[in-house]
Structures are given as structure tokens and as C-alpha cells.
């Protein structure tokens, strides 16, 4: 039985177009042009218990809107969804006690108070029994290395520390489903890395079902076995990350260092040159027959060192978006 079931979910926003300027503002008080945007268009997917799914897409793709509908913040325009058997936007307390949403750009912690005060409030809100609260808090502060900041006002924390505290607040009631919207946004590389490690470990230990949106490819590459790629409200890939790479790329990148200078014309015709100096070359070769072609280059060229790489995942995704952008 899937934990999350989404069928034909759509969300349309209406807004008003207003031409700039004072006179147009006055006019718009009386007569306005109403426009609609379809942020999410008939999206369907299911997520099984314990899965960690990455939701990828450029800004405005509809990933956050989808998460917000699953968290019961927004009503869909049409379509259905069930999470843990509940219709999210009915906002039943029984459902709300079993999930959490963390939004990188919205803090739920009390800004002017130590994080501990917000944790105690959540204990009250989620009706967490004292022993469980203590145990969970200890575990989380241990895992996230948060001991020394519990009694510091939230506004005095670094962004990295604050995000950890936000996560702690969201996990105190041991949610079965966790929605993470851009959890690493604005964090430095080290803090991003730590956050990823924590999310991965938490998913494995607690078997929590996690849906994560990000526009950092590293997040998704490091965390999710499965990705859903969405653009302009439409899902156009849902499957394993590795499958995506194979599907999109037709090339591999080969970096070579030579023992003596090699002229461009000496390189085989199938190798597309990306970068070249007399003693080094980076070329792209077709994925198909790559082993044979590499062997051929090893034989004909004075190679000192050679590495073969998959194209970086960012490039893959970019390629997907570009392909998608072309009118079919």
C-alpha cells in the first residue's frame, strides 16, 4: 500500500494583471484583467513507505505547490491525493500529527526566543509524552550536534544551525512522512553536506518516507534513489537517477594526458574535442561502444593517463529541460 497517492492533481492560480503606473492602478480598482496560471497540471505518482524521493525542477516548476497540497496548505483545483490514507487539505489533526514539512525559506521557530522554547511548544502541540520528547530530543541533538545552541536565541544562530534546529522541531513528534522544501537553500558547502548526511541517515534509520525538493542537483544525486522531474507543472520523468543518466546522455567524457605532443588531427574522428593542449585532451565519445573506442584510442595515442567520466548530473538535468523545452 503506497503511503502517498496522487492522482491527476492540478492547481491553478488566478492573479490580476496590472499595467504599471498610478492611473492604471486606479483603473484596476474597477476593472481588472484576471489571468490564470496552471502551476501543476494533472500530476500523478505514488510513493511507498520508507522511500526517499527527490523532486527536481527549475524555479516555478510546481514542485513546492505540489508539496504544499500534500501538506494541506493549499487546496487543489482538481484531482485527488491521499497521504497515510488522509486527504491532506481536510487538515485532520490525526494526519497532522504524522507528518512534518520543513520549508527552507519559512521558519517556524520563534525568532526572539531560544530554540528550546519552540521545541517545548511543539511538545504541547503534538502532545508528545515527556519520556518520548526527552529521548527524541537527545537523539536529534546528538545527530545534529546541536547541544550548545539549544539555549541561544534563534536570531543569533547561523543559518546552518537554524536549519538544524528547524529540522529538530519538525522531527520531535517522529513523523512518518517528511516533506522537505529546499532544505539546503542558502547553506554553505559544508553545511549542505552535513544536512544531506543527516537526511540520508535519518531516512535509513527511521524508515521515514521523505519527499524532498531542491534545485541543487547535488542534493538529489546524493540522497534520492528515485527522482521525479517536473517542469511547468508536468511530470516528465519518474524513476531512478541512474536510469535518467543513461536515457539522456549519449556521451561519456574522456580525459587524457599524453607522453608527447599530439596534434588535433591525430585524435580519432569520433572524439568530439572539448578542450585540448598539445599534451592533454578532453573529448566526448558516444556512450555506445565506449569500451571499444577507448581501447582504440589507447592503442593509437601515446597515452600516459586516462579517465572516463559520466557527464555531471547537472548537465543531464539541464539536457532534459532543454529537450523538454523544444516544441515536440
Amino acid at each position: 500500500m503506497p503511503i502517498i497517492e496522487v492522482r491527476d492533481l492540478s492547481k491553478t492560480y488566478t492573479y490580476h494583471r496590472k499595467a504599471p503606473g498610478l492611473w492604471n492602478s486606479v483603473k484596476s480598482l474597477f476593472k481588472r484583467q484576471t489571468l490564470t496560471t496552471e502551476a501543476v497540471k494533472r500530476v500523478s505518482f505514488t510513493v511507498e513507505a520508507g522511500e526517499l524521493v527527490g523532486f527536481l525542477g527549475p524555479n516555478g516548476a510546481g514542485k513546492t505547490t505540489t508539496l504544499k497540497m500534500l501538506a494541506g496548505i493549499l487546496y487543489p483545483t482538481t484531482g485527488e491525493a491521499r497521504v497515510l490514507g488522509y486527504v491532506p487539505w481536510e487538515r485532520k489533526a490525526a494526519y497532522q500529527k504524522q507528518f512534518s514539512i520543513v520549508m527552507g525559506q519559512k521558519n517556524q521557530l520563534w525568532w526572539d526566543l531560544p530554540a528550546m522554547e519552540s521545541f517545548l511548544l511543539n511538545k504541547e502541540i503534538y502532545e508528545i509524552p515527556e519520556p518520548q520528547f526527552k529521548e527524541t530530543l537527545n537523539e536529534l541533538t546528538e545527530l545534529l550536534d546541536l547541544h550548545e545552541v539549544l539555549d541561544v536565541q534563534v536570531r543569533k544562530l547561523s543559518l546552518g544551525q537554524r536549519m538544524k534546529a528547524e529540522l529538530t522541531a519538525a522531527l520531535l513528534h517522529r513523523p512518518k512522512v517528511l516533506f522537505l522544501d529546499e532544505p539546503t537553500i542558502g547553506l554553505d558547502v559544508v553545511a549542505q553536506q552535513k544536512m544531506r548526511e543527516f537526511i540520508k541517515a535519518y531516512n535509513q534509520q527511521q524508515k521515514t518516507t521523505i519527499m524532498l525538493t531542491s534545485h541543487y542537483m547535488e542534493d538529489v544525486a546524493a540522497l534520492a534513489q528515485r527522482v521525479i522531474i517536473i517542469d511547468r507543472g508536468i511530470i516528465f520523468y519518474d524513476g531512478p537517477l541512474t536510469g535518467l543518466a543513461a536515457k539522456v546522455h549519449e556521451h561519456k567524457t574522456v580525459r587524457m594526458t599524453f607522453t608527447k605532443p599530439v596534434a588535433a588531427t591525430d585524435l580519432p574522428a569520433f572524439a568530439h574535442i572539448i578542450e585540448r593542449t598539445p599534451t592533454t585532451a578532453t573529448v566526448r565519445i558516444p556512450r555506445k561502444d565506449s569500451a571499444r573506442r577507448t581501447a582504440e584510442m589507447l592503442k593509437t595515442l601515446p597515452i600516459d593517463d586516462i579517465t572516463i567520466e559520466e557527464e555531471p548530473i547537472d548537465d543531464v538535468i539541464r539536457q532534459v529541460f532543454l529537450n523538454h523545452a523544444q516544441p515536440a
Partner: protein
Amino acid sequence: MQRYIRLFFRYLSTDIIREAEFRGGFFLLLVSNLIEFTVTVAFFSLLYGSVPTVGGWSYPEALFLVATYSIIGNLSGAFFLRNFARFSEYIRTGLLDTFLTKPVDAQFAATLRYHAISNLISLLPSVALLMISLHRLGLTITVVNAVGYVLLLVLGLIIVYCLWFAISLLAFWLTQINELQELWFSLYDFARYPPPIYDGGVRILFTFVIPVLTVVAVPTEFFLEHTQPAAIGYNVAIAATLLIVTRLLWKVGLRRYASASS
């Protein structure tokens, strides 16, 4: 219910911690409340220096009314002000999200979360004025008087909550409405004068359409022993109706809520 009372006191206690932290703002609000209170009382003593009665109300009766006005004003300031002042921002910035995902009624959490403790302290001079006017009127406090008065104050607070909430709810449709907070304050100002001074349309407007007059007048008249049961019944009915209507408006508004970007 018990859980909500516990939550309310937790909100309150965190606000006491916070205000202890920001003493400057605390004292500033306290001083501004006291100045406003003094100006109001001075206005009435000047007014009654030249006329014996206003709309049939004597000077000490008017003082009792002003004290009641000020008590309800300070209580609503203490419990509602900081929430409704933030309300349009919750909607504009999408902060309302954080209330909508928790297993606590979101209306409760969004409208009764923050408290202005200094307003509770500015209650003291209002209560003192109440005592002074009672002394001048030669009235004594009885159990019936006191309990009835307090219950009617609570009823008045409920009406104030609903009216103020209704104004704030416009944010779902207008998004940017900080100015409408001012609308509430100017509406409430009407309640500080004896109701008979308003005639015709104004009185009907502020009794039946936007019932701010009865909020202060009904508890006052009850204590001064010239209230009609009908007026009390009217306030009960108004409070119940407004609670239901604002609840429905809140639900309709939530359907419109678009939760600002990420």
C-alpha cells in the same frame, strides 16, 4: 479545550520571556498607553466642567464608561493586537503555512499566539478609575454586579475579537491591509462616549451593522443598574453570530489562500 488553555498559557509565558528581553519596547508601549489614558480622562473632566450631563450621563457615570472602555481596550490590546497586526503579513509572506500544518486549530494559533504584556499593566489605572467613579457614584460592589459585569466584559471581548478578526480577514482578498488596522482603532473610539450622543443613522450603524457601541455600553449600564435584559440578550446573540460568521469567512479565505512562493 483543556489543551487549548494550556497552549494559551504557554504562548503567554513565552511572551513574558520575550518582553523581559526587549524592555525598551515594553516601556514605550506602556508609556504611550498611559498618555492616551490620561488624555481621555482629561478630555472628559474638561467637557463636564462646562456641562452637567452628556446624553443624560453624569460625570462619574461617564468616567465609569471610560474606565470600561479602557479595560476592554487594554485587554483586547494585550491578547489580540499583536496577532491581528501580523495577520496580513502572515498572508502576504505565506507564514500562515506554519499554522496550517500543525495539529492545532489554525485560527486559534494565528489569532491568539502573541500577547502584549504591557497592556495588562496599563489595566491598573483603568481599574483605579473604575473604583474612583464607583466611589463618586456611591455604588457598592455586590456579587451579582461584579460577576455580571465581568461576564459582560468577556462577551464584549468576544465581539471585539470577531470585529477585529473580520477586518483582518480582508487580507485574504486585499493582501496588503496594514492600514485597515487603523480602521479598527477609529471604530472602537466611538465606544468611549455615552451612546445617547449618537443619533439616527450613526447609532443604528454602530449598534446593528458594526456593533461597537454595545461592547462597552452594556457592561457599564448593567453595573449602573439601568440596563434592559434585551440589551444583554442582543450582545449574546451578536457574539454568537459573529463567531460563526468570522469562522466561515476564515474558511472561505483559506480556500483563496495562495501561500506566497516557497
